[in-house]
């Protein structure tokens, strides 16, 4: 494709866009853009955009897969890629037209503002991101080059660590207690409440909490727990576990806010481009591109579309509520702009959908729930009066960490035998057993001893375990 721009054009438009960004009140990290070709884009994508990242075969796989899909035209490349760091780094595709570049630049500022302000990202320490990844990469390479460790061992450990990296704390707003603090808390909770009518009431029984148990209360952070409680891991192994954990922690907010984030960026690229007074042919191309990006996918869900619809609806409900809405929700106390800026700070996808996805919107978008029935996928619920709540619940379960089974460590010394006992908090969705088996094998590798997970399959309680003898299942009462 012939390119109709050079870097000066980009800088010219960027300046105009930044004026608008400030006018609208977005507050961004400093921004850097890098123009790249499709090879560089594929390379960047394979490593989630990080300029340096530790090596692992799975990134090679991801590159091959992206490249195959691209070569066969199954999927195109994104117009841009932006990473959450300060300064924020974004890649622009060399082959895109000027209009696309303008759209992309505006879109990038939307993401940038979101990274800088949404609460889920407050734990990522944006100004250290690039350095952190670089340091991690250097450390992993050092272990690979160490003759007493080597690539094979490092990759084996990374395989295992990757398998459970996402099993970590879901709510960082809840303070993590140390084991001592947690035991004290358990004692406090067990203490009977003072009862002014103790003479008439039956005497409360005091149940002694089991203070010997490790962890005192169920633990979500499997990787870190194993790191801290398996004395047989060597230092480099522990270090790798930390590295993998920190990588995952960095990416979690992006998983948790996909819909909000894409919706927010789309909202702002639309607002900014509409206010730029683009020359007519650029503006027409912009309308076409914009509609491509935010079009609904038939039978699927486009996060760009869903997010944008929600943001628009929040704004409209505050600026211009219908009489029914006033009756239902009361008169709005904020302007639409105030409302959306507040929401972009305090919500993540699950809460965003829960709070703002209304029955009307769902009906308007014709959202339905599908389930497997035999070999086929069948629509099981639609957003009518009876069904919409359930469809909404299902949707919420399918965003962010809702797609990751909740598995907590109950006991690290089960049967006084150093068996790691975990429990899957079943919410109606069974575990995929082949994957569960292999993942348990990885945990066993890291824990160095038998591991078990209690779950349910087809409504029956089952205990899956993996020891050096291999995988076994047995029913539980």
């Amino acid at each position: 494709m012939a390119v109709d721009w050079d870097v000066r054009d980009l800088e010219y438009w960027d300046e105009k866009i930044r004026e608008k960004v400030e006018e609208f009140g977005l507050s961004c990290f400093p921004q850097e853009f890098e123009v790249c070709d499709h090879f560089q884009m594929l390379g960047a994508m394979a490593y989630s955009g990080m300029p340096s990242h530790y090596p692992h075969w799975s990134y090679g796989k991801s590159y091959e897969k992206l490249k195959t899909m691209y070569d066969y035209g199954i999927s195109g490349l994104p117009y841009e890629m932006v990473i959450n760091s300060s300064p924020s780094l974004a890649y622009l595709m060399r082959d895109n037209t000027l209009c696309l570049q303008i759209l992309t630049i505006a879109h990038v500022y939307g993401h940038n503002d979101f990274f800088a302000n949404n609460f889920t990202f407050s734990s990522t320490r944006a100004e250290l991101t690039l350095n952190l990844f670089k340091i991690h990469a250097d450390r992993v390479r050092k272990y690979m080059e160490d003759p007493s460790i080597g690539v094979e061992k490092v990759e084996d450990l990374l395989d295992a660590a990757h398998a459970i990296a996402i099993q970590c704390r879901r709510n960082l707003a809840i303070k993590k207690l140390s084991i001592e603090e947690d035991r004290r808390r358990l004692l406090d909770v067990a203490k009977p409440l003072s009862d002014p009518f103790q003479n008439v009431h039956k005497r409360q029984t005091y149940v002694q909490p089991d203070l010997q148990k490790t962890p005192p209360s169920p633990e979500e952070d499997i990787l870190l727990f194993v790191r801290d409680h398996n004395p047989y891991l060597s230092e480099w192994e522990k270090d790798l576990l930390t590295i993998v954990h920190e990588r995952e922690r960095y990416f979690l907010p992006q998983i948790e806010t996909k819909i909000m984030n894409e919706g927010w960026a789309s909202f702002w690229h639309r607002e900014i481009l509409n206010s730029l007074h683009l020359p007519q042919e650029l503006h027409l191309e912009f309308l076409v591109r914009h509609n491509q990006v935010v079009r609904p996918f038939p039978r699927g869900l486009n996060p760009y579309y869903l997010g944008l619809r929600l943001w628009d609806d929040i704004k409209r409900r505050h600026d211009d509520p219908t009489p029914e809405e006033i009756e239902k929700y009361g008169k709005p106390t904020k302007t639409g702009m105030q409302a959306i800026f507040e929401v972009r700070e305090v919500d993540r996808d699950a809460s965003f959908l829960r709070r703002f996805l209304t029955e009307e919107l769902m009906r308007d978008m014709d959202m339905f729930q599908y389930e497997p029935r035999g070999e086929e996928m069948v629509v099981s619920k639609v957003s009518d009066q009876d069904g919409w709540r359930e469809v909404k619940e299902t949707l919420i379960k399918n965003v962010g960490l809702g797609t990751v089974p909740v598995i907590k460590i109950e006991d690290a010394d089960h049967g006084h035998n150093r068996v790691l006992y975990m429990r899957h908090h079943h919410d109606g969705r069974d575990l995929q057993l082949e994957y569960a088996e292999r993942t348990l094998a990885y945990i066993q590798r890291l824990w160095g001893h038998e591991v078990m997970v209690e779950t349910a399959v087809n409504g029956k309680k089952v205990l899956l375990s993996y020891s050096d003898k291999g995988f076994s299942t047995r029913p539980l009462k």
Partner: protein
Amino acid sequence: MPDSIFRPYSPSDALRSDRSAGDRQRHRQKVRESIRENIADLVAEESIIGKDKDKIIKVPIRGMKEYRFIYGDNTPGVGQGDGNSQPGQVLGRQQGQQGQGDEKAGDQPGVDYYETDVTLEELIEIMFEDLELPDMERKILREVLSERISKRKGYRRAGIRIRLDKKRTAISRIRRKLAVQRRVGDEWDEEQRFPFHQDDMTYRHLITDTRPESNAVVFCIMDTSGSMDTMKKYLARSFFFLLFQFVSTKYRNVELVFVAHHTEGREVTEEEFFHKGESGGTFISSGYTKALEIIQERYHPTLWNVYAFHCSDGDNFESDNPATLKAAKELCSVCNLFGYGEIKPLGSRYYESSMLNIFRRLEADNFQTVLIERKEDIWPSFKAFLAKERTHEATVSAEA
């Protein structure tokens, strides 16, 4: 906010983008391992048999999965319709529906099959990586046919510039310098220049070496009588294909000879060999005799490494058996390796006669028999065919 920085495209950066090269290679290694584990299935696929060597074939690879805890099949999802969605409406088969818009880092199992391009040669290399051709009896006069290569042998004071050994030359100079220092004693001046001398120059010396054995011929002998149906021929063909490919990896120049026989043996083209059905009875000895004739005429065993393999369903005329045994013995004496594969698709084995019993009487170190019942047997029996020979060789050399 501060000005944004634009870094223009620079092609030199394209080099940097290939940082995934190392990880891609590791991934490919893993894929290779997985191909090797599934090689028996791949070999049984018709598509790879008889293809051109440089041809790229697409091997469906079960992707190297990255396991983690995920939800199973009974997980409902949410989609968006065109406005007329009704409960009970069928969306399609399972799989394809999932994760259409949302691409979170591989937390859906989805279809993890993808194809990888492997040249047939690469595949063969993987297949034969751990197989060795039994160390055969050396051919007299083999050097006549061998190629010449250069080999290092010692050092010389004279030679051409390109073969100058810099390290040894430098050592030689230092040695001379120390000798002079010792002789001169205190008068030695550190600042003094001490150039290389003609005597320091050390050159690598090369000699031409000859490499043994370069030529091999593979005899494919097949029963084309009426009882050999398409299935049996397919099994035979697969086995010949492996044998040919394997021998090709070990020799530079491999020729193929096809001998078809029913009651008389004929040399035929590859096309005829595999596709032309004939009818009539079977004299196995006729095929062997024909092969022996061709060996005498064109591939004298003193100059050629001869590999012969015969496939049949074992249905031979009783009266021909003694002659067959005699011819087989003769073949053993001229071949490096002679094999007999009996092809009996399952179920047919008990009521048909078998040559395996007859061949039991044949005592030769380089003779092997295998039984192939279905296509999954091809690879194991092929491995056994070579492996047996190897263990045998091992015992022989242990005695010697």
